[in-house]
Each structure stands twice: as C-alpha cells, then as structure tokens.
C-alpha cells in the first residue's frame, strides 16, 4: 500500500487548521456526508458528556471522567471501525463508544449504573462496554488492557476473520509495563491492532514531560518494530483519515500501528479531581478558545459550503431530542436486582456462592 503519511514526524499530521482552513497539501478522502456525520457525532458526544456532568452535580452519578475536548480524536479514530472490529476503551472513551454504536440511553444508563447499561452498572461511570458491539468493558487499571487487545488481534489473525482491534490508551498509560510489553508482542506477531494514544498531555497532574523523556509518544513504536504517527488530535478529519489508513493496513496483514492523537481535556481529570492544583487556567483557555475540535470542524464545514445556520439548528434540535430520549430511557431503567450481585463471577454459581446467597437473600 502506498503510504500517504510519514511516520515519526515532529509536526502533527493535520488536514484542517485551527481556524478551519484546509491544510494545503492534505486532501481528505472522506465524503461530504462523512464529514458532516463526524461533526454531528462530536456535537452529540459533547451534549451527552455535559449531561453526565449534570448527573454528577446532582449526586446521581458517583464519578465521571469527562471527554470534552477530545471528541475529534475519539470519534475520528472510531469512525471507520466495522461492527466486527473490537474497541478496548479506557476510562474516558465516551466518543469512541458512541461512534461504535452505543445509544445515548445506554451511555447515560451506564453513568447511572442502571439495568439498561449493557454491563449492568458493574463498573464505575465512564467505563463503557457492550458485548454485541465488541466494546470491551474496561477495568480502571491503566494500561493493562493492552495485552488483551493484542490477544484479540492475534485470534483474528489466526481465525483469518479480518477483525481489527483498536486499543485506546492515554499518555500516562504508555508508562505501564503491560502496555509496553503488549507493544512488543504486537510487533513480533504483526497483529492487526491499532494503539490509539490519546495524548491529552496529562495523567491526572503529571504532564507529558514528566511522563516520558521521549519527544513524542508516536516514536515509541519504533522500539517495537512498527510505525508510529503523530496526529493533530483536535482535527477530526486527520484523526479519521490516519485511522482509516491504519485500519486498512491492519486488515491487509501489515501489522500494528501506533497513532498519537495530540489533544487536551477541558475538565479536571475526573469529577474527583481539582485541576487548579497543577495546571494554569490560561493553558486550558488557550485550548478551549482557539483549538476546540467542534468549533474548528464547524468552521471548516461552513467554509467548504457544507454547513449553514439552518443545518446547525436542525442538528442542535436532533441532539437535544436524542439526549432527552436517552435520559428518559436511562431514568426509566431500574437498578439491577440485588440478587444479581452474585451473577457472572463464574458461568454458574459455585457451591460456596449458593450458600452465601441463601445466607444473604434467603434463597438460591
């Protein structure tokens, strides 16, 4: 495959610059319709994220790790995945989960820990998962999903199923040994896996400079024998294009790719964090006011003649309706029954569990 991109560059690959102008040399392969869908997904994602935040403030959710600011890198990277493909989200992948197909109702039910959450509220909020959609319910343990993402890809390779495995990791997660061991494994087996490094420049309070001494996260791939690409993670076009390239390579048997999406989170690390302790307001304002992925894409679409006020108004209505509907579904959904606390530890209850269950609930 002729490579339209150069690995290991110092400047992020971009299609659309900060004020929405196309970058001269980069012509999108995306259709107009795809461009608009990307934008629509970002707007919907932000609205769901905001809604989750309200739930936290209302005390109805115990935790939230907001996505705001990272819509482009999450949605762009998930956009070309097929249903059979796998996603290993981290603890902040609302955008990826939405793009892969989870409904606003499911996503908000997850935040509330309700029955409509495909994972039945077992995990803390922001840990989206769905078996049907091959979105693997994540652990909170940073980095340790990476070997399994490679394992899924190894199985795909062995079964010749054509599935691609997409593994989301943060900048912080690249310091965990399991992540790096998994990179090495993927390199040796040329597995169809993509490591989508969401470099939002912080791991809680630790900035990227204190996380690693390498210049970029992308270049880490070289240590394991495959290519890494640095991409403007707030440019949804670039995010989608580079990922499409990596997906095609993976399906063609050309092995793993690491993509570093350079982006920024607007919120604190999570609802439990106080980010004023470690980052300057000015830095946040700079990103939010001049590099926002949604604003940028809207300008781009407008400039390309693909968008106008009427289209925007229609989208906002649709998004509002979708969130309201999702919220209603989530709220209507019950909590899982208390007895289910024993379910799914094993395929069936073991004898000692039956005994415990009788002890606590009076029946098996």
């Amino acid at each position: 495959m002729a490579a339209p991109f150069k690995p290991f560059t110092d400047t992020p690959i971009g299609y659309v610059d900060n004020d929405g102008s196309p970058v001269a040399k980069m012509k999108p392969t995306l259709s107009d319709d795809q461009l608009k869908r990307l934008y629509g997904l970002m707007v919907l994602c932000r609205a769901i994220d905001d809604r989750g935040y309200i739930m936290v403030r209302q005390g109805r959710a115990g935790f939230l790790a907001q996505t705001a600011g990272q819509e482009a890198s999450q949605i762009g990277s998930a956009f070309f995945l097929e249903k059979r493909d796998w996603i290993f989200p981290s603890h902040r992948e609302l955008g990826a989960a939405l793009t892969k197909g989870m409904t606003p109702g499911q996503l908000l039910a997850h935040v509330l820990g309700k029955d409509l959450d495909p994972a039945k509220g077992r995990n803390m909020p922001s840990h989206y998962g769905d078996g049907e959609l091959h979105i693997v319910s994540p652990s909170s343990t940073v980095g340790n999903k990476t070997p399994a993402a490679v394992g899924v890809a190894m199985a795909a390779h062995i079964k010749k199923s054509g599935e691609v495995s997409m593994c989301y990791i943060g900048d912080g997660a690249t310091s965990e040994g399991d992540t790096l061991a998994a990179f090495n494994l993927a390199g040796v087996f040329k597995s169809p896996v993509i490591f989508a490094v969401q470099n939002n420049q912080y791991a809680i309070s630790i900035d990227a400079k204190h996380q690693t001494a390498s210049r970029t996260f992308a270049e880490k791939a070289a240590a394991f024998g495959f290519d890494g690409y640095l991409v403007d993670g707030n440019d949804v076009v670039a995010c989608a294009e580079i990922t499409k390239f990596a997906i095609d390579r993976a399906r063609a048997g050309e092995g793993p790719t690491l993509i570093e999406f350079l982006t920024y989170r607007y919120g604190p690390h999570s609802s439990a964090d106080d980010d004023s302790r470690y980052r300057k307001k000015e830095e946040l304002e700079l990103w939010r006011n001049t590099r926002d992925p949604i604003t940028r894409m809207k300008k781009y679409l407008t400039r390309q003649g693909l968008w106008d006020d009427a289209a925007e108004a229609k989208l906002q209505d649709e998004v509002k309706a979708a969130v309201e509907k999702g919220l209603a579904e989530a709220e209507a959904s019950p909590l899982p029954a208390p007895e289910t606390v024993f379910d799914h530890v094993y395929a069936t209850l073991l004898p000692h569990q039956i005994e415990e269950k009788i002890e606590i609930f009076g029946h098996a």
Partner: protein
Amino acid sequence: MATETATRTFTMVQAVREAMQEEMRLDSSVCILGEDVGPRGGVFLCTEGLYAEFGGDRVIDTPLSEAAILGAGLGMAMNGLRPVAEIQFIDFLFPGYDQLYSEIAKMRYRSAGMFKVPMVIRGPYGGGVRGGVYHSQSPEELFAHVPGLKVVIPSNPYDAKGLLISAIRDEDPVVFLEPKRIYRAVKSEVPEGAYTVPIGKAKVVREGTDATLISYGAMLHVALEAADRLKNEGKNVEVIDLRSLVPYDGEAILESVKKTGHAVVVVEAPKLGSFANEISAFIAEKAIEYLEGPIMRVASIDASVPYNIEKYYLPNADRIVQATKKTLEF
C-alpha cells in the same frame, strides 16, 4: 514539669500526612514517591503541602507505573533512603505486584541479610465509597501471605499516625493500608510530635464477656455497630482491633477467646481465602477446647465489588449480629 503536647481532632488523612511530615523533618533519608504525590498532594491529599516543604528530591512524582514506583522505592531503600511509596488506590498495586512479591519481600532473605528494604508501601483500600470493581478492593491477604512483608491496617487517626511512624522506622518493608471509607468519616485526637504505636499489638476496643469480635480497618466500626446492637439484646461482646496482620497479636486473641468462648472474625475481603481464615484457623489450633460454638467469619461475598449494588456485597452490622447469634445460640 512535663511539656504539654498539643492534641488536635484529626481525620485519618491528616494523621497520615503528619506522620510523614514529622518523620521527614526528623530524618532526611525519608522520602515519598508515587503518582500525583507532588504539587497535586495526592488524590486524597495525604501528601498535601509536602512537596512545597521538602521539594522534588524528597517528594517524587513518578511516571504512571506501579512497578516503577515499587521497584524504584526498593532501590532507594537499598541505597540508604527510607522511601514511602504511595499507591494511588491499592487495587492498582497489582501491575507492580511482582516487585513486592519477588523483590521487596525476598531481598533480605535471598541475600542472607546483605541487603535490606526499610520501605513503606501505603495506599487507600476498601469499599463503601462507590468505587466499583477497581477502587474498592481489600486485598490484604495477598500481602499477608508473602513472607518478608509486614502488614498494618489502622482503624482510626491516632493509630494511623503512630503505626505509620513505626512503619517508617521499621527495618523491613511494611504494607500500610488505609481504609479510605473512614479517611474523613472517623476522627480522633492526635497528639503533635512523634509517637509510635507498636506493630504487632492488637487493642481491645470494647470489653465484653459473651463473644469476641475480631476485626480491623473500616470493618472495625461495623463490628462496633454490631456490638451496640447486641448490647441492646443483652449480649456483652468484646471487640478487638487487630491493627497489624503481620505479625498479628495471637496472645490478645487467645486471651479474649478463652474468656468468651465464642469468636467472630470480620473482614471486608471476599470470604474464600480471606485473612479471616488465618485468625479462625489459629484459634481452632490453639484454643478449640475453650470454644462453645463455631468460629464464624463475616466477609464480603465471593465476587468483585459492583459499583451500583455494592451494599449487597459488603458485610454489614446485620450480618455480624446474625453470625454472632449463631455461635452464641449454638
């Protein structure tokens, strides 16, 4: 004339912080390392202010790797420092478990004492804070079963400070688990200045004659609640706070059980394989002739900790009362 020591009403977070701060002032080899322990002050603020006071060479923000934190702490301890490694949530120690299991715990033994590891590994543990599967676990047994490690769990701020100072001064690695559910919920008087609570000594928190409840950490308070309820029903229950798991205070346990004839062990971990078993088996080996009923264990159910229906997972006073009655009415 004796100097008055000021005493303050402290949370466990404050007690833990002050123990580190005072020891760092007294001994320049004491240092801290972990994730977000620097300017951020730790996600629970246990190291708040320490970076400002002691600087980045003694309060070290590390990259996100527990193996790196634990292994680096090990190397620092071998090379003359006394590191206190913070694990952000004890659930996240496990990517570095081998450092604890194979390296930290076994360094002294495999080198026949040539290298020692005076190091503390501390972190919040336990449920009851809506933390879900990975911010709620009680894996103390997985440390207690590793020869070479000491394991300490305080149930209140006073003990937390005194035990942590003991741990920092100990010549061996000490795993120091802080029940996050009572990080701020339980307060007690804490004196200024260094004092130690010895590792390996239990405390009789409430005297009684009818049965012995043995517990530690956050569960101690649930056991006390159960003891209150039993009191209302005319049962006089003794409650022991173990405080140290390795070594544990076998004498205190036997003394009480011999008096009461009934033992109930309460832990927060899932029951199968839990540390409750060690206590139960110890009693069954040493004092069976004093027992007038079964040794009961109250523990979490054998599952992971669900986010939304956690309360059905954890032990509660009801279950302790029931278990105590079961052995009393035997």
